[in-house]
């Protein structure tokens, strides 16, 4: 099957790649572009481990085709930290021990970033419903919720 040329932006970097029409964005990220920070937990859109931002929209990369990235700005876990260091969410996940095995962590951080961009001061219920698409089997979510609450505070009032 002939491949399609796609031009997109990944973590602020212009990027061109070739992909088969049926390949998902997740496959392209992981296999073609070696961005393995985005994880596959189910490939059916049920676990959120492959959460990425497409422009400013939270998306499961396993539910989107690679060719659909054409002309969009994709943000993955590899694009969350900046030259100034870790994003407050990343720092707070570490401080609150909000990860155990860590496989869901990239997706959760991307989803939480999207949440805080839209709701800078979310209550606990809002956080829980926003993150309900991201499965974590290790933590029981308690420390994840606290990390997100703390990161929201930090973003509102940088130390």
């Amino acid at each position, binding site marked *: 099957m002939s491949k399609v040329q796609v031009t997109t932006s990944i973590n602020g970097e212009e990027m061109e790649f070739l992909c088969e029409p049926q390949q998902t964005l997740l496959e392209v990220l992981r296999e073609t572009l070696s961005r393995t920070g985005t994880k596959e937990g189910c490939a059916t859109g049920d676990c959120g481990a492959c959460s990425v931002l497409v422009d400013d929209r939270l998306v499961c990369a396993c539910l989107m085709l690679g060719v659909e990235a054409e002309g969009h700005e994709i943000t993955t876990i590899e694009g969350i930290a900046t030259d100034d260091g870790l994003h407050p969410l990343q720092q707070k996940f570490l401080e609150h021990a909000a990860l155990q095995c*860590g496989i869901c962590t990239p997706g959760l951080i991307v989803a939480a970033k999207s949440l805080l961009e839209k709701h800078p001061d979310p209550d*606990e219920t809002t956080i829980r419903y926003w993150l309900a698409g*991201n499965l974590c089997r290790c933590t029981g*979510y*308690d420390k994840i919720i606290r990390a997100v609450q703390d990161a929201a505070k930090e973003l509102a009032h940088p130390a």
Partner: protein
Amino acid sequence: MAEAVDYKVIGTSPIRPDGVDKVTGRAQYGADLNLPNMIYGRVLRSPHAHARIKRIDTSRAEAMKGVYSVVSGKDFPEAEHGEIGGEGGGDISDLAKNIMARDKVLYHGHPVAAVAARSQRVAEEALAAIEVEYEVLTPVLDLDTAMASDAPLVDENCYTKNLPEKPDKPSNIAAVMQLGRGDVDQGFEQADVIVEGEYRIPAAHQGYIEPHACIANTNESGQSTVWCCTQGHFEFRAMTAKVLNMNVADLKFVASEIGGGFGGKTVVYLEPVAVLLSRKAHRPVKMMMTREEVFRATGPASGTHIKVKVGARKDGTITAATAWMAYEAGAFAGAPMGPGAMSVFAPYDLENFKVEAFDVLVNKPKVAAYRAPGAPQSMHAMECALDELARKLGMDPIDLRLKNAADEGTQAPYGPKFPAIGLKACLNAAKNHPNYTKPLPEGAGRGIAVGFWFNVGMQSSAEVHINENGTVTVVEGNPDIGGSRASMCLMAAETLGVPYEQVRAIIGDTESTGFSNVTGGSRTTFATGMAVVRACEDIIAQCRARAAATWGVDEDQVLWEDGQATPAPGVNADVKPLSLADIAANAAKTGGPLLGRASLNAQGAGASFSVNIADVQVDRETGKVDVLGFTAIQDAGRAIHKAYVEGQMQGGAAQGLGWALNEEYIYDANGVMQNAGFLDYRIPVASDLPMIDCEIVEVPNPSHPYGVRGVGETPIVAPLAATANAVRDAVGIRIHDLPLSPPRIVAAIDAAGS
């Protein structure tokens, strides 16, 4: 040792050393590695739950462009019987046949062939080109059917084990176990009140978010390197060697980061297949399971059918208890009915009891360990029965348990007398916890239950290197599944007397550190931690010797205090203390690099008890249960990394709540799982749960230098009954079976109302 001590770093919650890589996407998990020239392996799985394989024709697949190798049962060595050893081992022949079926397929999803091809898509096309002819047999799908005397046989050669004499005909009951003491008939005669109950719990999956994945790279001399996500790369190496009849020395296993396991990654599924495919293809072969494959062909925990009867005097003293328990093994023997039987009454001091347990074959995937394997199911039954008993006696459920609680010196139902244990401390902590007495909203219910797990020690190795600037590298062999690198660093820092930040821990592969059993049995912080402490003590002894040599004094004139060598009081040496950095800087002159090591078979893993308090609200119209609050109280012996101990308790609580409320394997009449995906096999999501309050009780384990008890498994045990008891309290009806899903609750309410 282990009395109240002020520790410098133990009991704090610093950031884990591997943390930054895990929040930035750098950490490499099972599926994240790619090698040059790599191809992809996929598995063809049985569409039948029970069938004889009459013919497999792989010729069309082998001829396809882009297909490099194809294997099926005939490519594997003859599967001999024998013990694998270690965790989750069981019988080699069973393990081998579970990885690749030989003459029969025993569950829907059982592997029958595998291919390696240039892409996943070509591999899938090749699978479709493999012809398999089956003679379909009647599947055995539930415990009642399987245990009936006229049941179709899963395995015609299965004769019940542990009977006084070998039975004269085969059956689906692979093994039985009995435990008992005293005279239960007499005990029940002394009882003023007797409760009986029958409880069924369906199979549930460990539900780790990372599917199994590996890469095998086999060279032309037959040596192979395997990268994989595993709870124990040494045991994976041993299993692979035995299944493939290979020399252990020809296999190198490298553990990737692991995306959850909970017991489910203690056994090999893909690795031997990948080694064979790679050997035939002369290329590295990567294999990744889909989520559907994970559900259909790995894990789960046993479905069970358990009957419990308990009698007590008016004052709450239990006079007798009996339990009958059947555990689904899946297609091969080895359900955790032994631990189930040994744990069911473990929290209680009983004069008269009897337990009968059965390991039962059914045409479902072979069960795997899942956090305290066997205990959640059996203790659910007992803890629900005790709740009913407390109601009948008009007693507080915690008081009833306190009245009968085991303590130091109590003879455990499984034989020995308990050393110091924390059950009463946990019960008292629960009774005094504000969450136990705070008012409930109208219509809500509260339940409590006790949890228990034995914990194990087993073999571990550790090396401690002192780098040239005095920083410390700990090398050990247990994959870090929930922050254990941080715990190892804390114990090393405490022992050496240096700051936590000065210590890093790495997980060595099978060629770069000594043998260690799996990360399982709640053993890592206990046993591997003990090895790390011993290796640090080795370093301290060497440092004292080097300081003595530097100062020209005897070794016994040198102390190790606060991370430095100091002259003992009264030693007439005008010298400055030597730090680890000082000694390391001068190492070349005093004997070379500093390397401490220890290897051991850790004994004395202390049992860990817990008490959970669940508050629920039940919508009587829809049957939906809302968890309003959940409190986990557990004896950790000593919490090394406080936040990660809480994390174990909270995570176990969430898994237990999932099992109690939602999770179950649903099969059709042909033995095909109907909910093999996270949409329909619904594990708890963030919006299902409240914050989970934790109270860590610390009754130090005298067998560990810092008093550690394993904490990883006990947390999943009590939530099942705590939740069921809370639902009972809320709706006024005892629902015996799990999960307490909306349809089941609505049906129970309707039945009670009619």
